[in-house]
């Protein structure tokens, strides 16, 4: 039994990658010149049931951005797919997943700071959606804080489709049919960024001002579906702001 426990502990220790990237809970002073920092603010989502007794005004931040190290030359995430020839050092993960560890929290927003290895990064996804069809990439240079600004996410409903309200009859039907119930099709997310303004959380005073640089996004980064969920463009294929980049109207 002890041998089994020891083997399980060893296997667990081997499976955990060393932390080469992390969401910080405080501003490091001074900044590590060998690392890059990514600052991003999320607007909190209002709770539709906030009128109920004891219900919070905003929903908890359950999902967020996944960032990944990107190989511009091969057009994929480093060490994966087309960029398998450009791997990361052993045990380093190319993905910086969402970690709910804000450095500043207000009633309407949360501010996150990620300490990462300097590299080219891509906005890989949000929650269960991978922006494999086209996303933003940006440079994170050593000793600097890249300010991504304010990000907000929305479900990318197709034209003419909207969520159906959950009525009592529908709820009973779902409960009775169980795994055979007719389910709505899953819908991917899309995200949008805008620069930090006066109504947003200001850049914390602990940062050296000359080290904070606003992000410069380059669009069009494509990669494989490594998050294992749905896919979309970062701005949304079905977004109402315009037709998809490849859209053509078929003749009938």
């Amino acid at each position, binding site marked *: 039994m002890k041998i089994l426990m020891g083997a399980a502990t060893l296997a667990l220790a081997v499976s955990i990658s060393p932390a080469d990237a992390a969401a910080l809970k405080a501003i490091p002073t001074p900044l590590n010149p060998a690392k890059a920092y990514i600052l991003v603010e999320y607007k909190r989502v209002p709770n539709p049931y906030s009128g109920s007794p004891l219900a919070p005004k905003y929903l908890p931040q359950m999902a967020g951005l996944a960032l990944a190290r990107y190989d511009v030359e091969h057009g994929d995430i480093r060490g994966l797919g087309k960029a398998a020839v450009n791997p990361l050092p052993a045990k380093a993960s190319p993905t910086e997943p969402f970690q709910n560890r804000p450095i500043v929290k207000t009633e309407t927003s949360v501010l996150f700071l990620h300490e990462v290895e300097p590299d080219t990064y891509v906005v890989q996804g949000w929650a269960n959606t*991978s922006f*494999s*069809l*086209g996303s933003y990439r940006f440079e994170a240079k050593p000793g600097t804080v890249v300010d991504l600004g304010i990000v907000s996410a929305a479900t*990318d409903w*197709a*034209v*003419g*489709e909207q969520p159906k309200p959950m009525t009592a009859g529908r709820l009973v039907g779902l409960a009775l049919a*169980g*795994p*055979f*119930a*007719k*389910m*709505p*099709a*899953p*819908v*991917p997310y899309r995200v949008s960024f805008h620069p930090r303004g006066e109504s947003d959380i200001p850049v914390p005073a602990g940062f050296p001002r000359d080290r904070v640089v606003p992000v410069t996004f380059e669009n069009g980064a494509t990669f*494989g*579906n*490594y*998050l*294992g*969920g*749905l*896919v*979309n*463009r970062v701005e949304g*294929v*079905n977004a109402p702001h315009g037709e*998809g*980049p*490849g*859209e*053509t109207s*078929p*003749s*009938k």
Partner: protein
Amino acid sequence: MRTEWMRKLRELDQWKVRDLFFTGGVNEADPKWREASKVYASATKARLVIVTLTMLLFEGVALASPPAYFYKPSVERSTFDQEFGNCVELAGGAKATPHSLYTPNLYAAAIGGFFGGIMASRQRRAMVESVMRICMADRGYRRVIAPKGVLRELASKSDIDRAGRLFELATLPTPLGEVLPR
């Protein structure tokens, strides 16, 4: 021009990697064997997605959308193969959330696993459908409800022949069926 996954399917059939795998007697250090293993894994994934798409198309699973094919009359065969193949590859990455149940009761575990498997399978099919729909819409394709006669015809074809027939349907001057929203 055939897409990468089509080439892999052909290689799979030519090299009979599956036979090699199950009959044993292979040298795993052989670079040719390692390459063949990669081809087998990739082609198997592509085939799984095609089978899933076929199920979506023909069996009418209890999803919100009807069985449909993709339509874009101006597309070339090589472009269709490439775009369809890319979307199939992205759909191959979809993984359903595993449903696990722990109980000391063997019968309860079996029943839970059975229904959990059904739900996970449905979830994966729904995800594959969503990925194909979004990916092909991004490339300018529209969905068209497939008539029953077309479904029966497609069901009788092999994977490669089915891809050819799907291209013919995609480029018809007039779509065979109702054009759905993107």
